[in-house]
């Protein structure tokens, strides 16, 4: 049985290798590996353009992540309020923005508020230091404003639900004990509930940050000069869409993969600390191997 598994392993692996080679062959036949298509990516000038696009993406992403975490926490707390006139409107708000596509919100805000954002950006640009306004990107407020606002509306609604679930998951004894010590609502939240909830939520919150970062590409659609838009400009200027999109894709993967990996690691670690049946955690591959070996 073990030998049969080994044969399967070798056959399957060589099959995939053959398929990959065929796919690469196809690309080469289409002339996609010609040096002329890839050589522009050796020039530092092009990388400066890509760097500017990357900076724009990161700027929008930092805004989105910070604001959505803050607003999301507030929404999550508000949904747990014991006053009905707070809980219900916030509930409708959260349910609406959670289930609406972010692009719809981007379009709506871009068509209605972009002029206001543009004016606000100009005022802020004139009245702050220049380095500060380039760092924050006030000159792009016309597009980055609606983009960030739309992403924050969606992500804060999602994060609000995560925070609410996280707080509800803290054992009831904790808040009872805090009350017995005479803590008020604010202290109970700040000292007892939020820190404990945060431990359970952190993997989800971190992967939501990746989602916020990815959602900034919606700016591409309304003309924000982000990494994806830069890639598109490069692709159409140099007539090399495949190399250009490969490079842009790899930059996005390099940005997001470490954060996703961190979230996964945190989740694995929190699972390991919980006592669970050891056999349940055994990966399926090991199980198939182990059963095969025994026969």
């Amino acid at each position, binding site marked *: 049985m073990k030998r049969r*598994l080994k044969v*399967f*392993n070798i056959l*399957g*692996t*060589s099959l*995939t*290798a053959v398929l*990959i080679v065929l796919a690469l062959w196809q*690309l080469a036949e*289409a002339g*996609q590996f010609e040096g002329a298509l890839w050589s522009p990516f050796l020039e530092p000038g092009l990388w400066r353009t890509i760097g500017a696009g990357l900076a724009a993406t990161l700027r929008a992403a930092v805004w989105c992540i910070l604001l959505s975490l803050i607003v999301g926490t507030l929404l999550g707390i508000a949904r747990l309020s014991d006053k009905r006139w707070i809980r219900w409107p916030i509930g409708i708000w959260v*349910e*609406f923005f959670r*289930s*609406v*596509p*972010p*692009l*719809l919100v981007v*379009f*709506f805000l871009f*068509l*209605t508020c972009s002029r206001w954002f543009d004016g606000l950006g100009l005022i802020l640009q004139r009245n702050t230091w220049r380095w500060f306004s380039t760092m924050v990107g006030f000159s792009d407020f016309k597009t980055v404003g609606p983009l960030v606002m739309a992403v924050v509306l969606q992500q804060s609604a999602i994060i609000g639900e995560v925070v609410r679930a996280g707080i509800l998951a803290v054992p009831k004894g904790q808040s009872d004990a805090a009350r017995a010590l005479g803590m008020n609502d604010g202290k109970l939240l700040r000292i007892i509930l939020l820190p404990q909830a945060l431990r359970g939520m952190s993997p989800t919150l971190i992967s939501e940050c*990746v989602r916020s970062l*990815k*959602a*900034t*590409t*919606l700016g*591409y*659609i309304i003309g924000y000069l982000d990494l*994806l838009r830069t*890639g*598109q400009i490069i*692709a159409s200027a140099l007539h090399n*869409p*495949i190399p250009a*999109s490969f490079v*842009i*894709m790899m930059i*996005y*993967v390099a*940005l*997001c*993969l470490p954060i*996703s990996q961190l979230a996964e690691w945190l989740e694995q670690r929190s699972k390991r600390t919980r006592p669970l049946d050891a*056999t*349940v*955690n*055994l*990966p*399926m*591959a090991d*199980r*198939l*191997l182990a*059963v*095969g070996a025994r*026969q």
Partner: protein
Amino acid sequence: MGVLIDNFGAILNGFKVTLALFVLGAICTIALGVVLGVMRVVPVVGFRAVASVYVGIFRNVPVVLVFFIVTLCFPMLGLRMPFFAYAVIALTLYESAFVCEAVRSGLNFVDRGQSEAARSIGMSGTQMLTTVIVPQALRYTLPAIANYMISLNKATSIAGVFGVAEATIQLKYLADENPSDIFVIFLGIGSGYMLINFVIAGSLHFYERRWRPA
């Protein structure tokens, strides 16, 4: 309110396309996601490597970029298709990476006794996977899959920018004609999406209760 009634036909047509994108995308996504999920746990090094590279890339790339790559690079390789097909491919490529991870964790969650029992009544590895383990794993992963289906439904809106006349792009068309009523149009189309998501969540919740894992 008048705008919504006057343009009900246009919005409804948009939602028909959205639903078509969603249904086709969901079928392809779940099929590819299950195949990739199984590939990630099977003891064949090549399959596991391919599936984990796939997941590593497509989970960490924006869906707009996937659309961009599919619509721009496929024609370069001689794969010419209507925009609708490109959109379904892009949605499937993106969302199946998430479904794959959900399926994988479900597979690892199926009790070990199940695979031992399947082996002891003489099932082959393939038989054991298709008749015993994958069906049970899918039940465990149903809540996660429901979430990804809702995210798929929201992602269909990107297709509007890449040449498919679905519901979100109707906002842009209608707002050009009735700039003063844009808020009502926004609420109307948004409620349409909310309704679809509600139906998805509700039906999966129904199956979740019916198929509750023992």
